[in-house]
């Protein structure tokens, strides 16, 4: 059974979120955060060395979540593994019970905390989706038959607010052609723009979860604007957070307002918290 797939097919509005594995082996906080979001969301993404920072592996994080009865979305990038390693890892993930994949290229090694590493990028995200479609049909990337195929529910990322929108949408369509079944978008700010995107995206048989960020401080704003490629938090939001006497409360309010506006527009929301996972249930509660 695949909870995420079922929910996206049957429910009006589905929530997912993401949590970041620790740098190190102490998973106490990771598991605490997982417990906090457990009842509010259908599935939880586990990031794969996000922003090219060295972290506990995504696959291990997914397995830990499964042990807690939480359905994981295994994020996998093409930055650190060639196609042999990726295929092997995906077969392993499937054998361990992981069913959802988010396929991404990944932020460049030069932006992380180990810039000396050799970046791999043997595949890009479109090719990674193609590879997963192969494994799902019972073959490896070179058409050799598998002893037991995978049956992943797999998706990708799209940015409806990309500064170069048309190339982004052409790529979005290629991702669909390579089998992507759902999309978690980059952070959404401009709801009108997003509605336009949804009008276009509804032509395709894919599920769209809008990326919503909970901003809890100016520190988060700085981090996102400076460190995360392709992310730009608008000035109006920055002003609201900076002026507020309780920035956390304000951040929760902004996020829940946005989600309210998205009901009926797309298939769900993917909540990004930048380490403040404990705010997720509140945001979801307030948006109902």
């Amino acid at each position, binding site marked *: 059974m695949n909870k995420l797939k079922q929910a996206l097919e049957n429910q009006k509005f589905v929530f997912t979120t993401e949590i970041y594995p620790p740098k190190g082996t102490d998973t106490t906080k990771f598991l605490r955060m997982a417990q906090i979001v457990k009842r509010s969301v259908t599935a939880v993404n586990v990031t794969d060395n996000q922003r090219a920072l060295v972290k506990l592996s995504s696959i291990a994080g997914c397995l830990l979540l499964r042990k807690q009865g939480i359905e994981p979305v295994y994020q996998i990038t093409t*930055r650190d593994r060639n*196609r042999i390693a990726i295929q092997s890892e995906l077969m392993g993930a499937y054998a361990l019970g992981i069913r959802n994949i988010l396929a*991404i*290229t990944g*932020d*460049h090694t*030069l*932006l992380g905390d180990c810039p000396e590493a050799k*970046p791999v*990028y*043997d*595949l*890009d*995200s*479109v*090719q990674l989706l*193609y*590879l997963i479609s192969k494994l799902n049909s019972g073959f490896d*990337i070179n058409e050799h038959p598998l002893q037991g195929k995978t049956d992943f529910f797999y998706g990708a*990322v799209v*940015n409806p607010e*990309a*500064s*170069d929108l*048309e*190339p*982004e949408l*052409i*790529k979005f*369509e*290629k991702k669909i*052609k*390579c089998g992507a079944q759902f999309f978690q978008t*980059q952070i959404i700010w401009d709801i009108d723009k997003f509605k336009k995107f949804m009008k276009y995206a509804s032509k395709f048989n894919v599920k769209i979860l809008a990326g919503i960020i909970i901003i809890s401080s100016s520190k988060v704003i700085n981090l996102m604007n400076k460190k995360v*490629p*392709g992310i*730009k938090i608008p000035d109006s939001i920055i002003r609201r957070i900076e002026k507020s006497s309780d920035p956390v409360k304000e951040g929760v309010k902004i996020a829940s307002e946005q989600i309210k506006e998205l009901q009926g527009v797309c298939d769900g929301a993917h909540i990004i918290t930048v380490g403040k996972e404990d705010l997720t249930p509140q945001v979801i509660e307030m948006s109902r």
Partner: protein
Amino acid sequence: MVITSQKKHEEILKYLSSSKKIFIVGCGACATVCKTGGEEEVWQMEEFLSKNNKEITGDVVIDEVCHLLLTRRAFREHKEEIEKADTVLVMACGTGIQAVVASTSKKVYPVLDTLFIGVTKHIYEFQEWCNTCGECLLSETNGICPIARCPKHMLNGPCGGVVDGKCEIDPELDCPWILIYKRNKESLKKIHLPRDNSKRARPGILSLRGVR
């Protein structure tokens, strides 16, 4: 052209610490254009080394150091000066340095770092537009190479990090996918399957002997 830059002089002195008599090889081709190993730079290097108590036994600027036949010939012509030296210092690219190694049994040390094959955009300003991937796909990308010009070698369009046509890792770099798109967006639509890297998995060898 092969683009090179000079190593820090302290680093060069470090590995020359046990060398006393030095013969210097410069290159009349790429390293001359890059201002890293032409006549002038060879002369500057001699001055620097003399100040640091090294004896220069001689020098030569070879038309193309990477041409083994030319380099061997130059070494025959400068046999005496090279004999007197304990070390040969090479101001050419990595291929040139190894062509020198193949021409002498003396200790050979590099002066340059070899960076990439580049275009000259302005005088003394170079950019990498090809990384010799072994199977050129420019016919499918409007003549702009996403393999060499994208740090992630993206083959199916820009990554999520592109902002206003600039690359996520360096705002000085144009994202090739936006350039390709601007020339003709149709070429973005083709799905490029994973590339065959077996073509470049071993050191390149090419012989035209049977053909000529």
